[in-house]
């Protein structure tokens, strides 16, 4: 009984969280324009979606910006994290806190302040300004993903590579980067996800006719009922969902890996104890 209640509770919570999205996805396949009446399965809205040039160009903008922004943010964030590790403890703590602030900052504040900044330094609002904004808000996430890997990093490996004849940059590539890779990839995927689904910051930092998918959805919703919104939103949701699943799976498997290492450490302890016992004999 208790078990059943537990399951019911979790089911209710998940229902509460996902019901709107499920409704949205279901109705994106509705044959009718109505948002209330189900009139049979159809792919009409998806078809219309891919013939709508405005939506297609938004799709292109979204993924182009997400790709460039997350690549640039990954490079910037990774090197920033490395630099931070070389700092003195106090400076390091300060810089780390500062990098957390943009993460916690309300998007609207980030958006408005970036818009003002672009106006101030005379960058025309459009694709470039939106891209710069995305790089800005993605970089801290990369730093946050890479830093924990840096804590665990064994620096002597870097020295060992140089000792064996590797030039400093080659040593970095061959020893440090592979060790940081899980963090770097997580940071990249996180950036990509955040960039794909961002609305508020994009809204404030774009101009001309440059629009991403979230903005299209927003403007379509304002114009009134159009089930194409459902289709676009469903696609956005699925993309973000898949990316997040990948991120989570990576974290899980890296934890499993850590557990495996712990296991071998444990074995080593056992071996040592065995040795000691033999010696005692």
């Amino acid at each position, binding site marked *: 009984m208790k078990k059943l209640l537990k399951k019911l509770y979790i089911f209710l919570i998940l229902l509460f969280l996902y019901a709107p999205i499920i409704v949205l996805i279901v109705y994106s396949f509705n044959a009718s324009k109505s948002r209330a009446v189900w009139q049979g399965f159809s792919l009409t809205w998806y078809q219309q979606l891919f013939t709508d040039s405005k939506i297609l160009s938004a799709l292109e903008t979204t993924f182009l910006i997400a790709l460039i922004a997350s690549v640039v943010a990954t490079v910037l964030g990774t090197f920033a994290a490395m630099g931070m590790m070389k700092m003195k403890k106090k400076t390091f703590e300060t810089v780390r806190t500062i990098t957390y602030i943009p993460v916690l900052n309300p998007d609207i504040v980030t958006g408005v302040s970036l818009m003002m900044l672009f106006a101030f330094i005379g960058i025309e609002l459009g694709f470039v300004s939106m891209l710069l904004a995305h790089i800005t808000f993605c970089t801290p996430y990369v730093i946050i993903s890479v830093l924990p890997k840096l804590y665990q990093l*064994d620096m*002597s*490996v870097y*020295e*060992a*590579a*140089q*000792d*064996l*004849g*590797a*030039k*400093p940059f*080659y*040593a970095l590539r*061959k*020893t440090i980067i*592979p*060790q940081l890779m899980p963090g770097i990839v997580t940071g990249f995927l996180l950036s990509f996800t955040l960039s794909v689904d961002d609305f508020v910051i994009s809204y404030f930092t774009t101009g001309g006719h440059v629009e991403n998918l979230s903005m299209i959805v927003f403007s379509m919703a304002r114009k009134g009922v159009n089930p194409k919104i459902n289709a676009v939103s469903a696609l956005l949701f699925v993309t973000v969902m898949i990316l997040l699943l990948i991120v989570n799976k990576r974290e899980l498997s890296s934890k499993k890996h850590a557990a495996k*290492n712990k296991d*071998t450490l444990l074995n*080593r302890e056992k*071996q*040592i104890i065995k*040795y*000691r016992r*033999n*010696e005692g004999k």
Partner: protein
Amino acid sequence: MGKKIIELKNIYKRFGDFTAIDGINLYINEGEFLTLLGPSGCGKTTTLRIIGGFEQPDEGDVLFEGVRINDVPAHKRPLNTVFQKYALFPHLTVGENVAFGPTIRKISPDIIQKDVKKYLEIVNLEGYEDRDVSTLSGGQQQRVAIARALINKPRVLLLDEPLGALDLKLRKDMQDELKTMHKDVGITFVYVTHDQEEALTLSDTVVVMNNGRILQIGTPVDIYNEPNNAFVAYFIGESNIIHNSIMVKDKLVNIDGVDFNCVDTGFGQNTPVDVVVRPEDVVLVPADKADLKGIVTLVTFKGVHYEIWVEGPTFEWKVHSTLPQTVGDELGITVDPYNIHVMKHEPLEIPSEETAVEV
């Protein structure tokens, strides 16, 4: 033993307010096994890192075969290092780890493969090429680290407490293996340790360091038998160090209130001195046969010998003897003149247990 291969001239190194190396002069002969020995923080690892090119000295020169190499970066020095915690590349297999150096030097893959096999054999790990390094035991990882260094045929191999992380039994085995390897490959070894026994067992030359300075350089036998100050005596093996001794005149020293004949001269008359006597050099005789008498306070069986503590008038003597004694007995204490080591009196900075035993 040939010419000087490495020379350190007047080296200073500071980290902030801390002086890690306080004026070191040292040369290392080609082919020798030289050990830098001292407690934690004595500057031995920093010295090694300066030789390896991982630290820059603030002052002084590092010479390799007479040529100054201060500005030569680590990856261009004909030296290789075995690091304290092995520093194996965790994402590479055993074979790939060992092949790292030759791959960089763009040696053909066939030769690399042969070399990897050969050097894994030298370290007793034949057939381990495809193993994941994380599946190896500490001793095996250490051997991979040694193979990875030796395969580059360095002129000098630097070893930074390579056995520090191993348990006792494994450590003894690896000591023997290291000594054999040194003989077989015939390259210069510079070894850092805080373990005096290891230093005495392995080395041709021992360099005792403390507080960033070299206190004594010599063969293990010299260092053990003729420590030139109380710290060296304390650090190398167990000793009775009697601080309140007085050099009465040449060849006569007052220890624990009793005059002893010794072989040392040149300290002047009635000068305060430190006297060092090894526990195995103290001879216990019946009380009426000696001027210095003491009471046995503790007897411990140590395997090869008994450790006996004898309370003299002002000093508690540690004695190693193959014969047991009875607690409470009064005995005479004698020492042969040549076993009494007289040194200039100086305040002794005995490292606390914590710093003496480096982890």
